[in-house]
Structure formats: C-alpha cells, structure tokens
C-alpha cells in the first residue's frame, strides 16, 4: 500500500489546487486529501437528507468516485472546490434517493440566450469569493441562517418548510430573500 492516506499530503495546497491536480495528473495523494476533507462533510449532508449511516457512506463513495472521474472538467475560475463538490453531491442524491432526473441547462445549446456581460470577473479565483461568502454566512441572523440550512440540506422546498415549521410562507420567503441579498452582496463585493 502506498502512502496515500495522509491528509498532510495536501496541507499546503488549497482544495482547488488539489482538485486541479486530480484532473490534470490523476494525482491520488491529492484525491486522498480531498476525500479526507469532503467525505465527512458529504456524509453529514447526506444524513440530513434522510440517509442512514450505511447508505450515506455508500453515497459518499459514489460522489467521491464522480469527483475523480469528472475532475478534468473542474474550472477554478467558475467555482470553488466545495461548490463543485456540492453540485455533484446534490445531483447524485436526487438520482439515488429520489430516482429523479435533474433537468439542467446545456451550456452548448444554440438556443441558450448568451450573457451579454459574459463574466467580467474571469480569472478571479472563485476561492476568494468563497472566502468572503463563508465570512458573510457567519454574520447572518440565526433565523435566516437556520432557514437557509433547511432549504439546502433537507430536500424540502420553501413552501414545505413553511408548513412544517409553522412559519408563514411570506416570512420564509422574506428571510431567505434577505439572507440571499446579503450573501450576494458579499460575493459581488470584490471590485
């Protein structure tokens, strides 16, 4: 067995660097470091989606294998490593737990209406934006942060959250909107 499992292998590299190394060089040590960081978080995420411990670990393995196979398509200017892993985990659990398709746009579709301002911030590492975003998350009022976690982690649309939590729909909407406004401002506040 080679020495692959040490998280220290990637201690001086960002997760974005590690993911890029996996995509470019099939770097197994980088992959192991990513696993060490993301697998426990993915397990927690999948548990909150209703998986039991065993099922969650199986799905974690699936997601990490997809990370390995798709790493070549990862673009650090478009998304942080965590965001990219999140979208893979989200789609995988919709497929596995709900057995549904996840309809998404096709960026190559000729019918797609192009962005007239085509990302002016090309080249700005998404990692920097992610740092500001994480800081802003910590400043959200608890009632907004709690709803945001429910919306992302519990596989429930906001209408159902409203019914289950006994919070009026209008309140749920305005809290989510206020939270998003603040986070958006933090993300766009780079220049």
């Amino acid at each position: 067995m080679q020495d692959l499992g040490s998280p220290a292998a990637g201690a001086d590299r960002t997760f974005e660097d590690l993911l890029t190394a996996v995509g470019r060089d099939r770097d197994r040590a980088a992959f192991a470091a990513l696993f060490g960081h993301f697998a426990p978080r993915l397990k927690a995420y999948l548990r909150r989606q209703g998986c039991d411990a065993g099922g969650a670990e199986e799905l974690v393995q699936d997601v990490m294998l997809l990370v390995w196979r798709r790493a070549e398509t990862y673009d650090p200017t478009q998304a942080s490593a965590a965001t990219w892993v999140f979208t893979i985990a989200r789609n995988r659990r919709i497929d596995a737990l709900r057995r549904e398709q996840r309809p998404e746009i096709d960026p190559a579709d000729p019918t797609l209406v192009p962005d007239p301002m085509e990302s002016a911030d090309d080249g700005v590492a998404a990692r920097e934006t992610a740092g500001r975003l994480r800081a802003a998350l910590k400043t959200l009022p608890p009632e907004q942060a709690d709803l945001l976690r429910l919306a992302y982690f519990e596989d429930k649309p906001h209408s159902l959250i409203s019914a289950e939590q006994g919070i009026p729909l209008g309140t749920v909407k305005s809290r989510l909107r206020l939270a998003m406004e603040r986070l958006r401002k933090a993300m766009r506040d780079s220049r």
Partner: protein
Amino acid sequence: MTVPTHHPGDTLLIDYAGGALGEAASLIVATHLALCPCCRLNVAEMEAVGGALLESIEPEEVDPACLETVLARLDDLPPLPRIPRPKLVCQPAEVPLLPEPLRRYVGSDLSRLPWKRLMRGMDCYDIPLGSGSGDDSSRRGKARLMRLASGVGPPHHTHRGIELTLVLDGGFTDDLGQFARGDLSVADDSVRHRPVADEEGCLCLAVTDAPLHFTGALGLILNPFVKF
C-alpha cells in the same frame, strides 16, 4: 435578443439550486435559465452558497475503510468524456425554438406531438417525466405544453399549490402583466388570475407542483378545507 422581465424569484431559485424542487418544477426553472442569463448568474451564486454551507456543516466521521475502497476502485474508472465545447464561430443554420433541457423531453418538432384538445383554441401535451420507478412519484409534479390560439384563455381558476407558466413563443396577458418568451409566471392559491393569449397566440410550458403545501403539520389542519 431580449431578456425576460418576469422571473422565478429568489426562493424558487434557491429551491432549484439546493435541489429541493421536484422534476417538473426543476424542468421549468432550468428552461427559464436557458433563456435568462441573469437568473443563471443568481443560481451560480446560490450554488456557491451551497458550497459554503457544505464547508460549514458539522462533519461526521467516515469509516476509514471507505477511502481504501474508493482508492481501490479508481483505476477501474476511466475519466468521463469531456462534453465537447461548441465552436462559437459558425452558428448552426437553424436555432431550435425550444431550449434544453425541455427539448430533451419533447423533441424539437412540435407538430409530431400527440396534442390533446382541451377546448376550442386550446391544446395540450402532457410531458412524461422520470422513469416512473421513483417511490415518491407524486412529488414530481406535472408538466404540460399548452398551445393557445389568439385571445383564448383557460376558464377562470385558482390554484391549489403552485402553478408555474413559462412562455416559449408568442405571449399572454393577465392581471400581473404581459408575458413574452422566457417570462415565467408564478401563481399560487392566493392568485385568481385570468391569462389570455396575445394576438400571435401562445405556446407555453405549464407546471403544477404536487400539493406539498398541505402535507406538513399545518396540512392536517388545512386539508379538510382544501379538498373541495
């Protein structure tokens, strides 16, 4: 090219970005995204919020054997093929009317669909969703294409749950304004609206969600009243 003026709004986009919407609602939101660069940016940012939340979640210990299992399987799995990037130099001769992901569901030749007549000037096609194997198929919702002739509108109705309508061609007008290609109308049970197709007629995608509103604790109280 014009961009839409009626949008899903933050909460629906958050539901989409977080993956909480059923297939039908996801289909209509994603089809709107294809026509609306501004909502695409919003969703990308909402996915970044998902990433930040994943970072901040309390981690749960994973059995160390998991990593070994995964490492042992890496070599069995070739990288997935890259999706070829289109060359932007030459535009294809014909740009299909319907964007993806809708086109994948209904094809690009609308005349071949088995349209069903609902009333004079109003035809529909119910879009098959999913494989039908889901244990929770009720939450998928329903999606249909609607074709309205000039001046035609569905009979006066309110909505149980939520109804989303995306204009694909032509347009319609209701109490909330004028809706053209790419515009998405969100109507819930608080809205009594009366859409009427504009002069050029209207082709739209309409989606109703499963009556999720009424399944929670509150639903037990509400249900007897909304059954009629």
